[in-house]
């Protein structure tokens, strides 16, 4: 799409559209609704199959499909003439010739495009008295999706999803003509990481979720827009809620985050919300107990530890993370807070990585000349980005280079692939940085691929998607050197995009859940002024040191919030020992786990469908997690519980609700200062004026930055 503005006239209305835009979309801008079935821009080029969108264009004798006709300046279009109405009602009638019209028993009933368009554009009554085609009634397309082929109107959407978006080429059209049906090879199940999306895009009740079949009708459900926090992708979703319970999860298109798709984990994971193992009330040493007792005992135990306590935060909102670190630092006077499986980048490095100029946003992937995937497999770690990268390659001709320990799902589309040995990440990234500077080394082939990307004229737009484990492997400085070598900071649409280990990693770091940084990535002493005197206290322990200190008895108490060390962290035996050694263990958890079994006090946590708060996407977008479903009776708001615990410890913050918690967070994080009404699509703090309030990168500027042996810069010198 050229973007040049053109003016067209639709039904007498002047509409300004961008050249090359499809007529259907342009008309919508002028509030002219043209009915469609097969057209779905998310799926790529139009196919013009259903013929529902026929319109009259002056100067062209035959009606044209508006879904596939790019607008031209001065185009005059009619969508309501007799000729058009006749065509539209004819198409609807044709689509119904073989459709069973079993709406009363159809899950789609009430939210079905075919139903709506039949109402709005179809013929009054049916003239069809002949036998319709028959297929076995709903059969398993996969363990999760049922297909009812009698309802299918052959719009091509689902098979295009399989072909053009997921690229698994498993879902196909079989046979021909009106015998055509949607199926898989040899009737095997359609198993793929994103296949649930076909149930969202099917315009009829042909593809439905087993998890939802007959669970609810449109008139007794509500849709609640929120965010999926099962992985760092933080896809925007809409919970279908009935009787306070989540019955279904569907997409809530956000081009800046998920492009309108979600993975099957996000879609079907909701069933865990009322799993057997759900912790539904406070526990005291294994037994149920009342809230007051629980809070009291927790406070007592922690007080007894006399500041020799630590906290580790996992799945938590920004507000929760912020409050936990205040609980530790203020109520308990301990600096030992972390939100990572193990010590990663230092505060100084995190600050450097956080500079707005270096940041790429998700949608930058679309326009990238080169996507460089370093030390992560998006399909595993941030699934939706796997689709985003495929789209960039397929539709926008982006090039891809991959450098990882193990093969990734994206390898198939890569121009260049490099594999490094475990533990070699830091070295490899340094080599890559210097190879980009012209040095000859193992990374040269990859570097060449990266250099060749782009038109050559302007500097190539490179988006580097990197996994947090690079930081744990000590590759942060090399990564920053790489960013310099690629001139990311200087190039519009280029930048670094981290795929962190945990779902709200960025938010928790920025909220202060780091051993060496307070809220807003401030130095702890700046954050908390006088209360820390000795260096030791200034410098909190990271997750691994916390473990060791618990074992050695240096630390006595531990607060775990939304994290299960025995499952989530490496070295389970060591954690077994540490948890056993802890005198006082307070665990906030959604589910019963081996860890809750060891706890003195267990507090139930809300799920992401129940809690109220914000999270921060790896690209800096603050998003709203809205309470969508009701919590089990005995479960209280996480924020409230933290407030009560803090109060019980003699430190009443007065923060006991999401609004007050967010207000406090915003005061504590200068670069969040302009985040006001987040709204449905979220706000990237880098795009607000307060962005310049992020701590300055006070390290030496890039060109002189030394990254130890094999420094790109020294090499560059020697090369020149």
């Amino acid at each position, binding site marked *: 799409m050229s973007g040049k503005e053109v003016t067209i006239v639709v039904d007498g209305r002047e509409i300004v559209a961008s050249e090359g835009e499809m007529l259907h979309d342009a008309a919508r801008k002028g509030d002219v609704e043209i009915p469609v079935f097969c057209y779905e821009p998310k799926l790529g080029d139009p196919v013009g199959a259903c013929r529902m969108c026929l319109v009259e264009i002056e100067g062209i004798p035959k009606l044209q499909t508006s879904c596939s006709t790019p607008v031209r300046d001065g185009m005059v279009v009619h969508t309501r003439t007799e000729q058009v109405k006749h065509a539209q009602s004819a198409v609807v009638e044709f689509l119904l010739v073989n459709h069973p019209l079993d709406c009363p028993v159809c899950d789609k009933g009430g939210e079905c495009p075919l139903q709506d368009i039949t109402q709005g554009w179809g013929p009054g009554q049916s003239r069809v008295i002949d036998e319709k085609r028959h297929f076995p009634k709903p059969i398993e397309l996969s363990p999760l999706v049922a297909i009812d082929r009698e309802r299918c109107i052959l719009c091509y959407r689902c098979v295009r999803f399989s072909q053009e978006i997921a690229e698994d080429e498993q879902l*196909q059209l079989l046979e021909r003509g009106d015998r055509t049906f949607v199926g898989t090879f040899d009737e095997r199940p359609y198993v793929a990481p994103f296949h649930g999306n076909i149930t969202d895009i099917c315009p009829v009740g042909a593809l439905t979720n087993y998890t939802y079949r007959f669970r609810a009708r449109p008139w007794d459900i509500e849709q609640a827009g929120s965010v999926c926090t099962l992985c760092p992708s933080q896809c925007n979703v809409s919970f279908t809620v009935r009787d306070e319970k989540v019955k279904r999860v569907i997409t809530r298109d956000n081009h800046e985050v998920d492009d309108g798709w979600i993975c*099957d984990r996000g879609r079907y994971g909701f069933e865990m919300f009322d799993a057997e193992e759900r912790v539904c009330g406070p526990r005291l040493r294994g037994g149920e107990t009342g809230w007051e007792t629980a809070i009291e005992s927790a406070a007592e135990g922690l007080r007894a530890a006399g500041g020799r306590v630590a906290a580790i935060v996992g799945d938590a909102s920004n507000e929760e993370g912020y409050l936990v670190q205040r609980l530790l630092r203020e109520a308990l006077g301990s600096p030992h807070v972390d939100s990572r499986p193990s010590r990663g980048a230092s505060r100084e490095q995190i600050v450097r990585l956080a500079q707005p100029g270096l940041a790429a946003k998700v949608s930058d992937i679309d326009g990238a000349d080169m996507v460089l995937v370093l030390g992560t497999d998006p399909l*595993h770690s941030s699934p939706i980005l796997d689709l985003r990268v495929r789209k960039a390659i397929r539709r926008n001709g982006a090039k891809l280079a991959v450098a990882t320990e193990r093969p990734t799902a994206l390898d198939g589309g890569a121009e260049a692939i490099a594999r490094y040995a475990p533990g070699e990440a830091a070295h490899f990234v340094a080599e890559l940085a210097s190879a980009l500077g012209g040095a000859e080394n193992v990374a040269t082939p990859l570097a060449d691929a990266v250099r060749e990307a782009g038109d050559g004229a302007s500097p190539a737009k490179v988006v580097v998607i990197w996994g947090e484990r690079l930081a744990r492997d000590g590759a942060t400085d090399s990564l920053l050197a790489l960013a310099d070598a690629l001139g990311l900071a200087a190039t519009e649409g280029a930048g670094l995009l981290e795929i962190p*280990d945990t779902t709200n990693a960025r938010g928790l770091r920025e909220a202060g859940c780091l051993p060496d940084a307070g809220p807003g990535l401030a130095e702890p002493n700046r954050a908390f002024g006088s209360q820390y005197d000795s260096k030791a206290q200034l410098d909190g322990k990271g997750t691994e040191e916390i473990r060791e200190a618990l074992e050695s008895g240096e630390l006595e108490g531990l607060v775990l919030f939304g994290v299960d060390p025995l499952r*989530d962290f490496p070295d389970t035996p060591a954690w077994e020992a540490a948890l056993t050694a802890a005198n006082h263990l307070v665990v906030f958890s959604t589910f019963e786990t081996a860890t809750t079994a060891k706890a003195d006090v267990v507090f139930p946590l809300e799920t992401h469908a129940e809690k109220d708060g914000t999270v921060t996407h790896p690209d800096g977008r603050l998003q709203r997690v809205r309470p969508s479903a009701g919590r089990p009776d005995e479960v209280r708001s996480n924020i409230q519980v933290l407030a009560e615990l803090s109060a019980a410890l003699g430190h009443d913050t007065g923060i006991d609700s999401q609004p007050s918690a967010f207000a406090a967070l915003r005061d504590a994080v200068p670069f969040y200062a302009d985040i006001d009404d987040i709204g449905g699509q979220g706000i990237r703090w880098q795009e607000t004026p307060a962005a310049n309030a992020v701590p300055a990168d006070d390290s030496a500027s890039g060109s002189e930055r030394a990254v130890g042996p094999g420094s790109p810069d020294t090499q560059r010198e020697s090369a020149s």
Partner: protein
Amino acid sequence: MSPVDGAGTSSPDLPVDQAVTEGRVPGRREEEVPELHEVDCPPQLRERIEELMSRYPDRRSASIPALWAVQERYGWCTPEGIRQAAAVMRFTPAYLESVASFYDLLHTEPVGTHRVEVCTNISCWMRGADDLLAAFEAVAEGDDDVFVTGFECLGACDIAPMAAIGQRYYGPLEAAEAQTAIDQLKAGEEVLPEKALARRGLAGDAPSPGGAG
């Protein structure tokens, strides 16, 4: 917390964790494409398909010829045969089955190896195609080696009513000839020599039946 890289994801048994691939074809999740060693494709078939792919600027163009090859090898496009072609061509079996099922001459269900297609379209119908088809079907009744089917216009209305017998055209045929034709076809003999299209001259050179010409 659920570290979603390295340490393994928090909810294990979800499809998201299933993709592992060494693939090299831009686009497409290669794990859906069978590896050669998984399908033990007969060498001749493999070489044939590779030769066919080499004829075209884009190997996808060899899909239909490759499916023809599979059908020649196995009598019809068996799932196994399709998987073998898929492995050689680096496409998903689903893709090739989808293509095969579109075309009338490619069979995705078992059929007899001796095939008779009787044209039942307008010109042949006018000249008795329905009886002819019935006659062939009667002869083939219960014989799994013979596959008789009515077919749309075969492009030989000049010899109506006609049939393609073993991929060769014959006509005008009479119902009484069905038995002989099928016997000859199965015996590998020349089928109804005097009815073979190949033997005919130009219509304009034929002795005129009455007056004109």
